[in-house]
């Protein structure tokens, strides 16, 4: 169940102080869930590592100086690749594009899908029918296909990649937001707001959205993990932006050298895995925070 109706309607002035303590409280609750805290930590760590890559990497991503195809050693803890680059360094720099694309695509998908879902959920009727059909249309096609199709049409610079991935995942977002609007607009506090005569704008943005927030956060997080996987696939096929290293692209290079240099494939894959896990654990944690099912209890089936 979503959280209780927003308090935004009542005391605006005490909001600033209560916001910080409210956020701390939320964090505390997140860390009490089984893995939510771990998920958040993972995300923070990998984001920091990528953002501050120059500090953690020994070389730049374009440094081709080292001997090629060296197994992991003290000097190059993750080995070197076929171009003579230090894998660890490339991994960190590649994280920047992979993570950014993932997050931006999820955000864009939320904007597109969320708007469509909200419109369908609020206006219902013919509007909803048409929008849902369009959503279904895009949902029918697998993500990779949509992405490949878009890339073949438009090319694959950074933002075009983001757009392509967003195009693939917005239907999920739309359905979730639509569902939230349907359930929430039937609830008492919205009916009450309508009865009192509050404007549509107010109802959508100050009543419904804050309560849909947890579900939305969860979905955006999951979308980000999906986006990273899709983008990795794109990179693996060699169709991502060649000017920016990404994890998927590293796996593309690794494909040729599966026999000779396992470290070229294993480590980027692990990086993707960790990032996806981080987003998923975080999402699970948030779900558990707002939906405290008896997840701790084993089911009774006998006796």
């Amino acid at each position, binding site marked *: 169940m979503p959280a209780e109706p927003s308090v935004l309607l009542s005391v605006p002035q005490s909001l600033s102080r209560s916001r910080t303590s409210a956020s701390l409280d939320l964090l505390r609750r997140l860390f009490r869930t089984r893995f939510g805290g771990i998920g958040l930590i993972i995300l923070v760590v990998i984001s920091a590592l990528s953002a501050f890559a120059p500090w953690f990497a020994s070389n730049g991503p374009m440094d081709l100086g080292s001997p090629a195809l060296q197994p992991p050693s003290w000097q190059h803890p993750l080995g070197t690749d076929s171009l003579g680059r230090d894998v660890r360094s490339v991994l960190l720099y590649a994280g920047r594009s992979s993570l950014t694309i993932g997050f931006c695509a999820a955000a864009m998908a939320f904007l597109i899908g969320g708007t469509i879902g909200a419109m369908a959920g609020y206006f219902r009727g013919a509007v909803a029918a048409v929008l849902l*059909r369009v959503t*279904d*249309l895009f*949902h*029918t*096609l*697998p*993500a*990779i*296909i949509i992405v*490949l*199709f878009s*890339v*073949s*049409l438009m090319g694959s610079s950074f933002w075009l990649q983001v757009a392509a991935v967003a195009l693939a995942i917005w239907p999920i977002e739309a359905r979730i937001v639509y569902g939230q609007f349907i359930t929430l607009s039937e609830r008492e506090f919205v009916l009450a707001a309508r009865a009192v005569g509050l404007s549509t704008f107010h109802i959508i943005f100050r009543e419904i959205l804050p309560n849909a927030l947890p579900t939305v956060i969860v979905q955006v997080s999951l979308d980000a*993990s999906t986006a990273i*996987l899709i983008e*990795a*696939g794109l990179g*693996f*096929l*060699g*169709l991502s932006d060649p000017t920016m290293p990404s994890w*998927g692209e590293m*796996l593309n290079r*690794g*494909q040729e050298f*599966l*026999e000779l240099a*396992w470290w070229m*494939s*294993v480590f980027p*894959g692990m990086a*993707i*895995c*960790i990032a*996806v*896990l981080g987003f*998923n*654990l975080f999402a699970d944690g948030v779900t558990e925070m707002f939906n405290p*099912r008896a997840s*701790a209890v*084993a*089911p*009774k*089936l*006998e006796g």
Partner: protein
Amino acid sequence: MLRHIAGHMAQAVLLLISVVILIFCLLQLIPGDPIQAMVGDMPVPPALRASLEQRFQLNEPFFQRLYSYLVNVLHGDLGYSMNYRRPVFDILAERFPRTLLLAGVGYAFGLLIGITIGIQSAVTPHRSVDQAWSSLVLIGYAMPTFWVGQLLVMGFSIHLGWLPTQGMGPMISRASGVDWLLERAAYLVLPVATYTILETTRVARFMRASVRETLEQGYIVTARQKGLSRREIIMGHVVRNSILPVITVMGYSFGTAMGGAVLLETVFSYPGVGSLMVEAVRARDTQVIVGVVILIACSVVVMNIVVDLLYAWLDPRIRVSSAQG
């Protein structure tokens, strides 16, 4: 019930037509010379240009072209690939069964194993068992499928030498009968295993959640109350009711499996529709790209209809019934 199914089929057809129209419209948006786009990365001699212009009615108004395009598609004419020098339909007809074999078998196995794991995870009285399975499934879910493929290749083909790394079969083969089958089978093991892992992780998570929900239902208490054993409750009540939500998404998850084909066929150099798509994108062979997209949309839609039928068979609530009070 027949009317229900007919309704869904009509919707499905409508969906397919919409997909084709959408693609057609998108194609019109490609900047540049449409003839060049059709031909790909090769220079266009003037005679060819003239004949293509005439054949595809490029000088006709938009709706005329849309109409002809639709008619062509319905007749199975998906264009001609300059890259492969064959009609697109033929290429698809040759490659699709291969993909279907791989994806289909992997998908089926994944479904079965995933359902089993999901049920086990959710009903076990030992939390540690549930935790173990759930963690395994989560990690599997986080691994990119093609990476799993690479790992399997590295492990079983390269390192252990048990299985071949790529392709569909040996270059030259003199085997026949059962030997032929076994030979081919060796090539399919790793790709199918990868598909299976992909599908298992997806299904297991979903199934576990579904079973947990089912266990909260009242009729489980009724079953306990009747003195049924654990096994009887699971078999008789839990499985059937928990599978329903999983089945509803089977159509779309099959689509995901087909999407996975694109990546996996590249890892294993398997000559199916997936690797075809990648080759076509690289060569800018628009006709083939479009053909593949339409094909996959078709298969998802067909799968959805199958799923509808299956669901109607399993859940009596949506059948038209004579309700008595």
